[in-house]
């Protein structure tokens, strides 16, 4: 059990460092890093605090606390994935609308140019 929790601590710490590093290098925008940081910090705290982890395990009705932690990890990542799916969908809609707008504006510019050459 200790080994699994230690691995989880290590992975959470690595995730926090990776996100901070990416934010510093401007590879990820601050607003999108917040979700990851909250998730990673929550996992770090849970993997280091046995009392908290046991409370969560009792709450979930799981006898083996690390299993509860894995369940929470799964849920956290599902929420993050869902949030990013929403963001990607919105960005794709915006992107399509922009591409169509650019094409239509270019069409109008072309029409004006052709009219002025006549």
């Amino acid at each position: 059990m200790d080994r699994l929790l230690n691995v989880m601590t290590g992975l959470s710490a690595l995730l926090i460092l990776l996100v901070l590093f990416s934010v510093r290098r401007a590879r990820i925008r601050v607003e999108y890093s917040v979700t990851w940081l909250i998730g990673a910090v929550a996992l770090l705290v849970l993997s280091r605090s046995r009392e908290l982890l046991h409370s969560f395990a009792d709450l979930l009705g799981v006898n083996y606390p690390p299993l509860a932690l894995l369940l929470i990890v799964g849920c956290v990542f599902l929420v993050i994935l869902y949030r990013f799916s929403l963001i990607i969908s919105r960005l794709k809609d915006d992107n399509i609308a922009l591409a169509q707008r650019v094409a239509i504006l270019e069409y109008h510019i072309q029409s004006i140019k052709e009219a002025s050459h006549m």
Partner: protein
Amino acid sequence: MPDPRGKLMILIPAFNEQGAVGGVVHAVRQTMPGVPVVVVDDCSSDATVAIARGASADVLALPHHLGLGGCVQAGYKLAFELGYQYVIRVDGDGQHDARDIPKVFETLLASGCEMVIGSRYFDGNVGSTSLLRAVGIRFFRMVLRPILGKPVRDPTSGFVGVNRSALEVFSRSFPLEYPEIEALVVLQRRRFRFVEVPCRTLPRRTGRSSITPMKSIYYIVHVLLGVFVNVLKYERRIPRESRRS
């Protein structure tokens, strides 16, 4: 009385159709002289744009590939902005017979329906199409029948005429991938009407269909989901009478 053709635009979505698009534009020009023809190029990597321009079509060139729905919607947006009352869409691969365009247009004018579909399977027979496609078409006929409240023989036809009311709706909301079937549901949600007219199909001028058996299965699942999402979507229903006023 002004010629209603002055309010019509022909839209040809095309993606890498250099072998066919020139012939399609010529055929449309011959059938409908004086009617503006706009080729919407979905960022082709071949000479589609140059050939379309060479055939004296206007070209709406998308800056990157959007897929069929995004491509067609761009054309609808342009037509709506330019004030056209009617748009007829003909595929850029040359499978639709341009000689059927007047029939679609006359039906659009006479019927008062918001959409006219050029149906390849007007008699209900799906002809010599592949088995999987035939099964798909029959399946969607069955699915759409209770949703639309009437049978549709060719729900996947890309030969479609729309009036300005439908143009307005499609300018705002149009399915991105495989749009034909979902577009019918979008219109139904607005209580718009459609009618089918029999149309001829020509063999592809060049290339081959990109729909593989695997893609067909993806298509069916994708469209089915899209149909039900559109059915469940909340739309403020507008009574037909108040729309006319």
